[in-house]
């Protein structure tokens, strides 16, 4: 009896000892970002940021074995040099069926709560399992992905460093990916440098900035392009869903498919304009090949519909050159003003973001 008790005590001590030495605590990581981005960030309580978790996530982001044919990784469609897009209208995954929508740029996702063009995924952890398992993207169940990583001896220790124990699970795969994606912070464009007082924009850039954030007002003789209603603030997006007048009858109903409400027809999430000069083609269906076409769209091709955002109506205001009939859907920007607006959009390119070694492919030495 006494012996048994002693054995139990020894066993418990051994387990505790193992716990203390065997389970390493990952190193907490604090994300650094500009104060003007605000603190409405999302990091789930059960997936705190750690150095080791981010390292693992970066590896997994570039890991082709997470796909059914071992050739596709997240980075196939989200390439760093293109601010994590792929330059295509629609992307190619493991099979011949292209994705129904344009690949989104990945920057400042820490501030996003509803992911995808239609906002259907809440949180980056939930988002990641979509491309991993979609038969046309990476086409592999999370369980098979975990098995394939298990077969590579190196991963067990990486998971142990990140999560305390060597188990490789689907949940841990998406958690590590999400941790890595939260570090993709783009806040060093010339526009940020200007906000920090380190860059003096050209006259054209300054005028473009002014136009971008102003609403036209005829009485006060203010000219504006009203972009800030939706792409406002230093992050250049507000998490809103709007119909920005691409079609009167949209082929892709966007958010309506998620909510089942016809007031959401043709509504999509307002995209970030960070690095926008690097992420052509544009819009959820990649219909615009360049930014000139985008500016022309907002200036004179807004399509009326029941759900067209009210922010894009009644804009004629101080803009003058509206044509008859659809005047209030036109901005009436002059050729020079369009150039200025484009100059401002180019100011949002963050070259240090696309060269940052922390985000690059770890498999390429």
């Amino acid at each position, binding site marked *: 009896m006494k012996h048994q008790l002693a054995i139990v005590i020894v066993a418990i001590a051994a387990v505790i000892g193992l716990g203390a030495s065997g389970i390493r605590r990952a190193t907490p990581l604090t994300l650094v970002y500009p104060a003007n981005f605000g603190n409405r960030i999302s990091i789930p309580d059960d997936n705190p940021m750690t150095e080791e978790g981010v390292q693992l996530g970066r590896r997994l982001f570039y890991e082709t074995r997470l796909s059914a044919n071992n050739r596709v990784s997240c980075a196939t469609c989200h390439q760093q040099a293109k601010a994590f897009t792929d330059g295509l209208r629609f992307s190619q995954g493991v099979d011949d069926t292209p994705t129904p929508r344009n690949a989104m740029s990945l920057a400042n996702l820490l501030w996003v709560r*509803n992911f995808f063009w239609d906002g259907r995924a809440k949180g980056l952890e939930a988002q990641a399992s979509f491309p991993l398992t979609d038969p046309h993207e990476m086409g592999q169940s999370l369980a098979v992905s975990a098995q394939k990583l298990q077969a590579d001896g190196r991963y067990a220790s990486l998971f142990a460093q990140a999560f305390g124990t060597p188990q490789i699970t689907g949940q841990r795969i998406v958690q590590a990916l999400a941790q890595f994606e939260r570090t993709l912070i783009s806040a060093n464009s010339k526009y940020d440098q200007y906000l920090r007082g380190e860059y003096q924009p050209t006259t054209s850039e300054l005028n473009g900035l002014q136009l971008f954030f102003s609403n036209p007002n005829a009485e006060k003789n203010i000219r504006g392009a009203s972009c800030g209603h939706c792409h406002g603030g230093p992050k250049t997006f507000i998490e*809103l869903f709007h119909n920005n007048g691409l079609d009167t009858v949209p082929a892709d109903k966007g958010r309506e498919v998620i*909510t089942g*409400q016809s*007031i959401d027809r043709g*509504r999509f999430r307002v995209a970030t304009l960070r690095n926008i000069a690097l992420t052509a083609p544009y819009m959820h269906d990649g219909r615009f090949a360049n930014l000139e076409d985008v500016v022309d769209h907002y200036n004179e091709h807004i399509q009326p519909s*029941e759900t067209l*955002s*009210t922010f894009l109506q009644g804009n004629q205001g101080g803009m003058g050159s509206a044509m008859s009939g659809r005047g209030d859907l036109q901005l009436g920007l002059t050729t020079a003003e369009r150039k200025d607006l484009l100059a401002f959009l180019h100011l949002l390119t963050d070259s240090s973001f696309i060269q940052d070694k922390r985000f690059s492919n770890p498999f390429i030495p």
Partner: protein
Amino acid sequence: MRIRTLFLLLLTSLLSFQTLFAQDRATVKVSGEVTKPLQLSLEDLQKMKPATAVLKDRDGKEHPYTGVAVSDILTLAGVTTGQQLHGENLAKFLLVKCADGYEVLFSLAELDAAFTDKQAILAYQLEGNALPAGKGPFRLVVPGEKRPARSCQQVVEMVIRFAKD
């Protein structure tokens, strides 16, 4: 008597069957710190006590809206209003969510008749007609504010929570 109950049962089940398929029936969801979560349709709101409020719109003119007092909706959902709005309940807030993702916040006290005479309403009519596309079917009308930013449009959800700090 029995037959009537049976008939009523049949009718309600038919009605709920219909709502299953009428996916476009707009509703406002009330959730969070409530004793009775609600999913209010236009018909539900029309059955409640009507209230009016006036709002100066973009055109600079004042327009009369009809709807239901927000505080009545909160009371129906079992939120701590009126006599119950004291102590820790004063640390509760209402977050109003709109279809486009826009959100505005109120403390419960600023909506309560025991605290203020400015009655905010959830409006479903403007000058006797349904709200125009883009604004409706439901919009908040908050009288007495200098900017109409909290009189938000296309309301889809009202969430009541405790401020956590």
